[in-house]
Each structure stands twice: as structure tokens, then as C-alpha cells.
């Protein structure tokens, strides 16, 4: 995300001009997944949309702190720009809307109907032994927008990674002890 999407000139321009930016370090958050150290200037490897959904989320809030858009995991610069433009457009609609929650739902439905620039095809990964299929690609895009449609204008203080994505993958050991499989220095 840092090396590709946040380093993109167009993304930086729109963030600087139209948004107030905030960053939250998830280190120590038990709901966060795992990550591997790399610098923003290291060459980026191609990764599917939605990868790292537990350790990377982007939210757009109204000035009153209501969530109007949310994405989890990696998204490329084209898709991020589309999401930022969509969020600004939705914010303009909300100023005129009589029913604000309906306006959020309809806007997200419409967004999903259109083709999403830069979105990778839906990819499903089943981890050996895991019950759930991990959804990446355009499937992650759909899930993220459906989350906002199901929770329109959710106050930021009520947001949690678990509510949006579910629990982070854990390994269960004897005696009921649960451990998050992450490298120690990354936690």
C-alpha cells in the first residue's frame, strides 16, 4: 500500500486537497493480522486486491465521524482513486439527502453495479484446515461495500476489524490457548 498506492501522485494530490488524513497503528491490536517488514521504497510485488485485510483498512468518515466508505486489505492506486472519488460524490449527495442512510445504501449499490477500475478478478483461497474461504480480488470489494450498506453511517467509535472482516486467523493449541501466528517483532 505504501510503496504503490500511497506513493501515487494522483492519490497524494486528492488526499492533500480534499481530505483530512489520519493514521492508526494497529500494532498490539489482537484483531490485526500479521505483516512482514519492508520499506516504502522497496520494489513492490504484485499482490491481489484485499490481501492483508486484517492489518490494513481504509475508512472515509464524514466530519461528524460517520463511516461512509470502508475498504480492507491491499487496493491499487486506480481503485483507491475510484473509492476516494466515490466517497466525495457520496458526501455531496448526503448534504441534500432526506434519508441519509438510504442514500448511503443506494450509492454503494450503484457503485458495485458499475465496473470497478483496477479491481482484480474474484479470487478465493482455502487455507488447509480452515473452515472459511478467504475472499480476495473483486470479491473483497463487494464484501467491503456490503459492510457499509449493512452499517450505513456507523460511528467510527463503534468500528472494529472483527465487525468488518471477522476474526484474524488463529492457531488453537491444547488447553484452549489461542495464539495469533505472527512474527514477534511485528506485533
Amino acid at each position, binding site marked *: 500500500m505504501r510503496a504503490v498506492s500511497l506513493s501515487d501522485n494522483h492519490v497524494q494530490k486528492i488526499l492533500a486537497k480534499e481530505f483530512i488524513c489520519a493514521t492508526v497503528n494497529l500494532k498490539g491490536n489482537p484483531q490485526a493480522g500479521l505483516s512482514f517488514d519492508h520499506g516504502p521504497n522497496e520494489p513492490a510485488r504484485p499482490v491481489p486486491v484485499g490481501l492483508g485485510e486484517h492489518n490494513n483498512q481504509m*475508512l472515509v468518515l464524514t466530519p461528524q465521524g460517520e463511516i461512509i466508505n470502508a475498504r480492507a486489505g491491499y487496493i491499487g492506486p486506480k481503485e483507491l482513486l475510484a473509492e476516494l472519488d466515490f466517497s466525495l460524490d457520496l458526501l455531496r449527495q448526503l448534504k441534500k439527502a432526506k434519508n441519509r442512510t438510504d442514500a448511503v445504501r443506494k450509492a454503494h449499490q450503484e457503485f458495485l453495479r458499475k465496473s470497478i477500475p483496477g479491481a482484480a478478478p474474484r479470487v478465493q483461497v482455502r487455507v488447509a484446515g480452515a473452515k472459511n474461504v478467504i475472499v480476495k480480488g473483486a470479491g473483497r470489494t463487494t464484501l467491503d461495500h456490503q459492510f457499509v450498506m449493512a452499517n450505513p453511517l456507523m460511528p467510527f467509535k463503534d468500528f472494529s476489524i472483527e465487525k468488518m472482516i471477522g476474526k484474524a486467523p488463529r492457531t488453537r493449541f491444547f488447553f484452549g490457548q489461542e495464539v495469533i501466528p505472527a512474527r514477534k517483532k511485528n506485533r
Partner: protein
Amino acid sequence: MKCKRNMVALLFVGVFSACAAGASPAPSEKAERPNTRHGYGTQWYTSVGDALVEAQKQGKPVFVFHTLGDLFDKL
């Protein structure tokens, strides 16, 4: 003569004060905003609460980036 000297001195002090006031920024502009860092072409609040206060002042939405680790590490 003495009166003239005093007037010149007062004028000098007045002009100097006005220049000093104009040249130096107001304390709020001079001081760096608390809980912010610069990177990726913009200013980032490290507290969403502070970002929301600024967003309400400017009437802009807030972009919140959750990441595992320091966003500005190795920048």
C-alpha cells in the same frame, strides 16, 4: 528639540513593532500542529479525534488509514 527626539524614537519603536508583528507568524501558525506527521504528500493526524476536530473546522471528510506498524517507518 527634546520633544522632536522623543517623537522620532516613538515613531521608530512603532514602525519596528509593526514590522515585527507582520513578519512573524501568529503563535498558532508558528507552532506545529500536535499529533501530526508529514508523509506521502500530506499531513497525517495520529489521532482520529484530532482529525475530526480539524475536519469539522474545514468541512472535509476524514481518510483513516489503519496499518500494522508505523506508516512513516523508513520514509
